[in-house]
């Protein structure tokens, strides 16, 4: 089984990455900040103005370490990856499945069932933890409203119907987000993105970007084409398959983390700034806190509900990518989405 390898996040603007033997060296103003052997890494994520040498790019490609370049606020810009690993037969199978409306609907249905079930769990868990009776009952009510949608999704037999239910559940779910936090200044008035208009949305967008990065590497690591999705339609530059895989993890890995960070006061409103366009962005310190929390979360152990194996949260998305590959190959009748308990 794949080992859970670390991700190197480079957030220091103006730093430079060089190859040093079989390791990455992070340099800043002629000083070495960090040196990490390539075999300890799964990927390198650079934020903003970070340079790297072509020798490093080649060594990373060969060692199967991807280098992602993100904007300072987590928007994906470019990636350096080596030859697609694995298997052209699997990719052909994936394209065939993506062209087959029935298969597409089945995979999309399972992804979204997983997402809604996990969203419900997040709401119910928050309801149990809430000290305020009113808040708790509102959260329970929201979770209750998701249940019938979940039943209807299970019967949906084309992808567009699934997309419709997804939208319906998402609007119900996000409507109850205000009840998930109890800290002033973090009130949420619905989901906004491109740009995010309040701190919670900025936080969520950033975490989703990190999750998308991980899902994308998971697809590539097991030979799937990250661009060809089932729930997400093909669009140039959009990693559809990675976004499909990510759906079931959004509530568990991103949303819950965002709310713990706020409720535990690890991030505060002061760590966010409003730009002239109205977009809300987090500052460097907050971004580092969020990245550290995200990495720590990924190292928590959990038992995989379908495989029954102990694993880390960070490896879950890799396991799901492999399960999807197994389904596409015909070794599994259905794609078993990750259901968080």
């Amino acid at each position, binding site marked *: 089984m794949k*080992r*859970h*390898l*670390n*991700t*190197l*996040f*480079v*957030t*220091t603007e103006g*730093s430079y990455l060089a190859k*040093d*033997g*079989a*390791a990455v060296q*992070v340099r*800043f103003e002629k000083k070495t*900040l*960090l*040196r*990490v*052997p390539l*075999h*300890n*890494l799964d990927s390198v994520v650079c934020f903003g103005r970070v340079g790297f040498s072509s020798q490093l790019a080649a060594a990373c490609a060969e060692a199967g370490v991807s280098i992602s370049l993100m904007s300072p606020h987590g928007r994906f810009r470019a990636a350096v990856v080596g030859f697609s690993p694995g298997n052209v037969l699997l990719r052909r199978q994936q394209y065939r499945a993506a062209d087959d409306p029935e298969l597409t609907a089945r995979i999309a249905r399972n992804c979204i069932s997983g997402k809604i079930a996990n969203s419900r769990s997040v709401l119910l868990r928050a309801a149990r933890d809430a000290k305020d009776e009113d808040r708790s009952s509102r959260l329970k009510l929201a979770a209750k409203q998701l249940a019938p949608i979940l039943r209807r999704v299970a019967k949906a037999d084309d992808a567009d119907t699934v997309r419709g239910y997804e939208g319906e559940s998402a609007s119900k779910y996000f409507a109850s987000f205000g009840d998930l936090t109890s800290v002033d200044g973090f009130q949420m008035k619905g989901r906004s993105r491109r740009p995010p208009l309040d701190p919670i949305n900025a936080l969520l967008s950033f975490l989703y970007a990190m999750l998308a990065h991980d899902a994308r590497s998971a697809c590539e690591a097991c030979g799937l084409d990250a661009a060809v999705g089932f729930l997400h339609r093909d669009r140039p530059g959009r990693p559809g398959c990675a976004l499909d895989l990510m759906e079931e993890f959004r509530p568990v890995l991103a949303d819950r983390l965002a709310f713990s960070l706020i409720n535990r006061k690890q991030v505060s409103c002061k760590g966010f700034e409003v730009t002239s366009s109205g977009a809300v962005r987090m500052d460097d310190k907050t971004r*580092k806190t969020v*990245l*550290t929390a995200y*990495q*720590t979360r990924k*190292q928590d152990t959990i038992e995989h509900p379908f495989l029954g194996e102990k694993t880390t949260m960070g490896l879950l998305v890799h396991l799901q990518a492999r399960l999807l590959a197994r389904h596409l190959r015909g070794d599994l009748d259905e794609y078993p989405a990750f259901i968080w308990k």
Partner: protein
Amino acid sequence: MVMLVTYDVSTASAAGKRRLRLIAKICLDYGQRVQNSVFELDLDHAKWVECRARLLDTMEPEEDSLRFYRLGNQWRERVEHIGTNPSTDLSGGTLLA
């Protein structure tokens, strides 16, 4: 797992000085330097076999000595650091620069 590699390389001759540099470089390919001739390597078994073979090829058994300590997967309980130059937890902590 984590391996601890320590060495004494005879630097009496020019060839010895060369071996010292090469052995340090090999160790750096697989892990991090924690003290002058002490390295912690966080790797899987396959990588360790590769590293060990390279080290044995480079050393001169008549003159140098190598010691390998197997700290295993539970190495965090077995290592305590006091003082300057703390090491980075390459597989567990957050790698942030």
